[in-house]
């Protein structure tokens, strides 16, 4: 295969629609190259030969110089993909090449692959390869709007240039693909990721069947250089966990196909009533899967009771509720075994919802999730208030830690918790509680975009629905900018920033947070969008409501009736739905009907309907004929009944200051003519 063929095959493998919005790691090893070359009958040797030659237009001689020339001005060449990706893939391949040198050495592997002496040192111009990595980031994020994936040129490890290819090797594609199995085995909830500090422990405990030896080695390494790579690995794992929808494929006896089973974690919710010293505990869960249309009926293993729920909003379920007896009663969360946990199953829909067993449970205010009360979480964050529920065995440790490392700790003396459990309120935690995983405080923050509506799969948002910027585990002092301009934070209680209203559309918007140790950034773009050119695809319905052909005799599209139909004129009636109390007035002074005490007039045609909104407000509606619109008010002799004339005058003239006149100017003019006429009757 020639260079560009290899380049296209490799690029398509790593950058494609399935990676939209996700971070791409350019992890390349012999297995990857061989599998990509297999359909063409070639392998690693052919690949290396192709990068030695480079693309057809290369004239320079050095390896890195060829890579640079491949990158130069490539966008003007009409190529589908950046033509230097094969070079970057080669640099990563070198990083996973075993040599006789120290494990952290990079260049011997580089030369070994090129069949050159391994001690040749740093390749000429290697320091300029950062230009290629940066360009790849620009291409994926700004040119392609992350629609094929997001590449981030990270420098990991103590060596700047070698750190770039090395950072691609933290996790192989195989490992990434199989992470859901690990998550499932570890009982992780994708909607409630644990603190980054406890991810290594989880990976070690549940990763033996999924993770390669080198990954496990990285997790166990105590070397300073590896700390940065380990952090990168944790970030990727957390990203993958959040992308996971909780579905795992299971082999079911007697069934040919794998069955998709949805797993998620049950969250305890606490409603505190300080006056009554009462905690009411109920349960709900969150999922990124869509709920079945008819909701879920979840049963415990004893199968006695079905607990119903459906989606409330944003993937949150309603509280689990008993609806079998006609009355609605929430499942009492304090009746569950908090220490051992419990499992609820909906067999028909293949959903499993598990309450994790734990001696310590953490709760945060639900307001960030649009929920009332306190909602269970797996992550302790800085600068926030939490409730901690714990059983007797850990009481001493938690109270000691709380006094030392929390700005505020106070026991909530409430009933309603399971026997032996205590509830404390803590604020501004500064350090982790040793030996209790859930009370680990992360020092790293994450930049996330919340809400907003994307126009597609990449990083483009509708201008009318931009995202908001949130920092998870915020220290409270971050400065968030967009293209260098500081963003505003409407409510200092929440680490959420908003984009200004006059953000330009169609331009890359770099949202950045500068932290002490590093910088977090995301690039988005806002777009104006119009209506589709055509609505020809919109189907028609027949008179029974079934989708039908566009030549059906009488058909409906939305609210429009098309085709040949018999026209029956509408017998319009005087409107009594405008309000509970309406005074109808006719054109003759004294034509008045106070509905509903009096009947709707039948002997004369009302011109005005005055609707009582309150004692101090009446609204006017014109209900006359088209002729009355044209003619306006023309003096007419009053009716004989003087009391009716008086009421007519009262409605028009006496109450004129508390009557809101019609909005249409010409109608208002007619109304004013009536008011003036009423003055003189």
């Amino acid at each position: 295969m020639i260079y560009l063929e290899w380049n296209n095959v490799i690029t398509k493998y790593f950058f494609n629609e399935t990676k939209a919005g996700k971070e791409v790691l350019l992890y390349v090893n012999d297995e990857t190259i061989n599998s990509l070359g297999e359909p063409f009958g070639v392998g690693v040797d052919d690949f290396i030969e192709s990068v030695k030659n480079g693309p057809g237009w290369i004239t320079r001689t050095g390896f890195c110089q060829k890579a640079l020339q491949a990158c130069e001005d490539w966008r003007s060449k009409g190529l589908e993909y950046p033509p230097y990706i094969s070079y970057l893939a080669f640099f990563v391949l070198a990083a996973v090449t075993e040599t006789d040198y120290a494990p952290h050495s990079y260049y011997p592997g580089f030369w070994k692959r090129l069949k050159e002496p391994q001690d040749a040192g740093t390749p000429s111009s290697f320091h300029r390869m950062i230009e290629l990595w940066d360009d790849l980031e620009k291409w994926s994020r700004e040119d392609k709007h992350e629609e094929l994936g997001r590449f981030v040129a990270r420098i990991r490890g103590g060596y700047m240039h070698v750190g770039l290819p090395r950072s691609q090797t933290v996790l192989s594609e195989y490992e990434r693909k199989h992470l859901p199995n690990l998550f499932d085995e570890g009982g992780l909830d994708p909607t409630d990721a644990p603190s980054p500090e406890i991810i290594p422990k989880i990976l070690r405990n549940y990763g033996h069947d999924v993770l390669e030896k080198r990954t496990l080695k990285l997790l166990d390494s105590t070397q300073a250089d590896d700390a940065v790579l380990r952090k990168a690995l944790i970030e990727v794992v957390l990203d993958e966990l959040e992308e996971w929808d909780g579905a795992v494929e299971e082999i079911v006896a007697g069934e040919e196909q794998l069955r998709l089973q949805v797993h998620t974690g049950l969250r305890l919710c606490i409603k505190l009533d300080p006056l009554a010293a009462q905690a009411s505990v109920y349960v709900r869960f969150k999922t990124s899967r869509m709920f079945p249309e008819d909701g879920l009926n979840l049963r415990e293993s004893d199968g006695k009771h079905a607990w119903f729920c459906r989606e409330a909003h944003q993937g949150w379920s309603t509280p689990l509720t008993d609806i079998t007896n006609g009355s609605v009663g929430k499942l009492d969360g304090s009746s569950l075994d908090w220490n051992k946990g419990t499992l609820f199953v909906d067999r028909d829909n293949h959903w499993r919802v598990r309450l994790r067993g734990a001696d310590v449970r953490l709760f945060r205010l639900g307001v960030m999730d649009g929920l009332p009360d306190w909602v269970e979480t797996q992550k302790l964050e800085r600068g926030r208030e939490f409730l901690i529920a714990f059983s007797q065995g850990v009481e001493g440790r938690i109270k000691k830690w709380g006094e030392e490392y929390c700005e505020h700790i106070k026991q909530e003396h409430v009933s309603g918790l399971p026997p032996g459990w205590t509830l404390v309120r803590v604020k501004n935690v500064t350090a982790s509680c040793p030996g209790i995983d859930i009370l680990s405080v992360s020092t790293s923050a994450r930049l996330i975009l919340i809400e907003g509506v994307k126009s597609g799969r990449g990083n483009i948002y509708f201008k009318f629905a931009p995202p908001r910027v949130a920092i998870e585990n915020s220290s409270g002092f971050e400065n968030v900018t967009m293209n260098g301009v500081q963003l505003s934070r409407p409510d200092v209680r929440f680490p959420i920033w908003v984009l200004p209203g006059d953000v330009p559309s169609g331009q890359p918007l770099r949202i950045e947070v500068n932290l002490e140790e590093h910088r977090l950034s995301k690039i988005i773009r806002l777009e104006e969008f119009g209506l589709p050119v055509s609505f020809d695809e919109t189907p028609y319905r027949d008179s029974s409501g079934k989708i039908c052909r566009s030549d059906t005799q009488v058909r409906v599209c939305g609210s429009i009736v098309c085709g040949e139909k018999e026209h029956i004129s509408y017998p319009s009636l005087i409107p009594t739905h405008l309000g509970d109390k309406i005074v109808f007035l006719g054109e003759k002074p004294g034509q008045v009907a106070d509905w509903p005490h009096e009947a709707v007039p039948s002997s004369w045609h009302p011109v005005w309907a005055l609707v009582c909104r309150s004692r101090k407000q009446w609204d006017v509606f014109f209900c006359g004929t088209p002729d009355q619109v044209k003619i306006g008010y023309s003096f007419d002799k009053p009716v004989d009944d003087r009391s009716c004339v008086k009421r007519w005058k009262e409605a028009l003239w006496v109450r004129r200051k508390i009557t809101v006149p019609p909005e249409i100017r010409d109608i208002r003019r007619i109304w004013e003519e009536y008011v003036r006429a009423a003055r003189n009757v």
Partner: protein
Amino acid sequence: MSDTLIYAMSTRGSMKIEQFNELFRRVYFPSFEQVEESVEVDIRRQIVRVLDSLGYCEFDFDGRMVYMCKPSLVLLPVFGLPKAALVGARSPALIQKLKGAVKIRRNKAVLKYLHHSGINAAIPAAIFIEAMDIETIHEIASDVRIVYETSWPAAWALANISSSLDTLKESLIFESRAEPNWKRRVFSKERLVFSGFESDNPASYLAEYKDPVSQQLHHWLWKDGAAAFVDRDWGRYVFLADEGLNILLYDEKLQKLAVPVTVPLPCVLARAVALCTGTAPLLAKTCPESIGTVPPEHSVQIYSGITHVIAKLVASKLHQKLIYTRLNRQRMDAL
């Protein structure tokens, strides 16, 4: 929020139902109270029905697609000045154009907004143009380059052309069939819902079966051992009519029609009643006593501005007799 949903839908023109669901999840933020209440009503399903009934879009559940309709001005069945509602797709630019076209005719026309609240907060603000005459509405529609239908009120046209239960019943083919061994629910005439707990097998019943592979629902109407496939919405009314049960509540004085949420009107008739005002029906609960066949504290959709003639026409199409009652706040609890 309400406009965000329709703007996003309109921009896409058409989308898969799954994409709509995702979109809805991103934009729907109810208040705490609604989060607690919504166990009884599937909000997304309600919103889908309302969007469909107001003529904004067509939900094709068999094809699993949502299609936006052409932006149009349709006449409401009001008394006095002609009033047209904007239905179909919309965008911020279209609304600006519409405002501009009304502004230059401000002596003769006015643009009105009505924002929905509560559970209906996800429904786009209703936009109306009230004018001195029909011609002004035509001029505005032409300026904005949108369709108008003002020859007769959309509600009246839809109610007239809608099929009736007679036609539907004629199309049912009852055959002796083996009941599938899929998960079954039976429509309960006492609770007006499909229920898995109905134990006895009466001579006639409406059953719902869920295909375990595709998860599609199928509805069969059973009569003396023979069954006919039936559309779910029509099927419920066929069953109720056969049982002689009336469930449509009407307040003649307030011109309001209440339809149980669990027995929604067939699509064309639902559009007819929704387009009497062009606004979403109010979701409410009936009083603690049953009204006719409607069980106590049952969720209902209350449509406003339903004149007696339209209410009777809709009821007659469904072989229902209107239950005349008061639909005021004392009798209904708004959700």
